[in-house]
């Protein structure tokens, strides 16, 4: 196996094009190294993105927050801009694994890996983030639902790299939260993760965004159910109705960590907790 460190995105992409079958991209390596160690992959070439300059920046441009694909999850969580505008993304990144994983794992790697038991994707989907993707034919920006296809699969073409994530900064700062539930021990990956944001005019809810991740193959947002919140106060009854809507509308995953039935119960419980938290400020 050869370990290559291209110095530009173009070079990384052309190296990929030259070795489509035999090469694997490595960013932080937290997933790739485990796969190598366990013999799940045996590439001839590892293409490291680490030496590509500027790919780890976190900055505001045109009223949108740009996070480079190589930004470490810990740096995203520590970013003053992320904490100020997107506390749900802060909380989702800060919840990942342990300090060491967050010091090594990148946001782009987390998205490209497309493991359902993840925290950041639900927060990014709730925030209407766009993923910037670059390949030989140019750059495209796609939404999370257009990137994530299912279990460990994305719509990325073999020549395409994730270069960053772009999140629109809302004009009116909503209340936001990310609530992660672990059913076994704290170092486990999430059983259910819920990202929510809501705006209020006095007690009247004027907008709700709610995404459930980790419990289903792809993070899920149900706009018809979100709409139930708008135009009236978020009473306990209304919150219950929303939680029931999500519990009924999401096909949950059965795995070694928990049964699908249990995940559905946990969606119901945790949505109510998150929404009551947002309502009570």
């Amino acid at each position, binding site marked *: *196996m050869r370990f290559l460190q291209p110095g530009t995105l173009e070079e990384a992409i052309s190296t990929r094009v030259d070795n489509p079958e035999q090469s694997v991209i*490595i960013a932080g*390596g*937290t997933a790739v190294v485990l796969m*190598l160690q366990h013999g799940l992959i045996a590439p001839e070439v590892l293409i490291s993105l680490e030496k590509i300059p500027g790919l780890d920046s976190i900055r505001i441009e045109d009223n949108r927050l740009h996070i480079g694909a190589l930004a470490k999850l810990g740096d995203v969580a520590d970013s003053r801009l992320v904490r100020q505008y997107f506390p749900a993304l802060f909380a989702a990144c800060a919840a990942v*694994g*342990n300090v060491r994983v967050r*010091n090594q794992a990148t946001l782009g790697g987390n998205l490209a890996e497309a493991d359902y038991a993840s925290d950041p994707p639900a927060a990014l989907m709730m925030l209407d983030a766009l993923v910037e993707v670059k390949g030989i034919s140019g750059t495209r920006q796609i939404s999370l639902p257009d990137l994530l296809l299912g279990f460990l699969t994305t719509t990325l073409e073999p020549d395409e790299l994730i270069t960053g994530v772009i999140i629109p900064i809302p004009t009116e700062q909503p209340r936001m939260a990310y609530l992660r539930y672990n059913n076994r021990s704290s*170092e486990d990956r999430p059983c259910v993760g819920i990202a929510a944001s809501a705006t209020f005019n006095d007690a009247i809810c004027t907008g709700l965004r709610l995404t459930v991740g980790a419990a289903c193959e792809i993070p899920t947002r149900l706009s018809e159910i979100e709409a139930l919140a708008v135009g009236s106060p978020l009473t306990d009854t209304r919150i219950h109705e929303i939680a029931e809507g999500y519990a009924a509308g999401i096909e949950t995953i059965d795995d070694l960590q928990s049964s699908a039935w249990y995940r559905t119960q946990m969606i119901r419980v945790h949505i109510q907790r998150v929404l009551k938290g947002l309502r009570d400020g």
Partner: protein
Amino acid sequence: MSNATLKVNGKEYRLSFSPHQTLLHVLREELGLVGAREGCGIGICGSCTVLVDGRTISSCLMLAVQAAGHDITTVEGLADDEKLHRVQRAFIDHFGFQCGYCTPGFILSTVALLANHTNPSAEEIREYLSGNLCRCGSYPNILKAVMSLSDSEV
């Protein structure tokens, strides 16, 4: 095989190893630095913790080639000749271990914590060190050791 230079504890080593090898493997098998240990091998237990550019990582999750060009610190690099690092001293003074298997990892994590927060609270210490596991359950004494180094103790 890759040829790479690893900078460990301030010294540069010109090495030749397979790019599959983890940093943990190369530190132990090529350099004889056995302070970093394998517990879980999957990033959870923290017994393989080392510092790369001052930040903790699991050396079982990083390839040695990825660490080339960075400053690597292992527990062997903390003491100044015979004089132990103050974190090592505190772990001894407070009996922050029993078998000692997890200790290098806890010590390096504590060094990284104190580099960024000079006076962490007990809560912050617990949260930061929650990714290091101790099978002997020395947690109360580890917490005492780290608290003794925090300005907030007073």
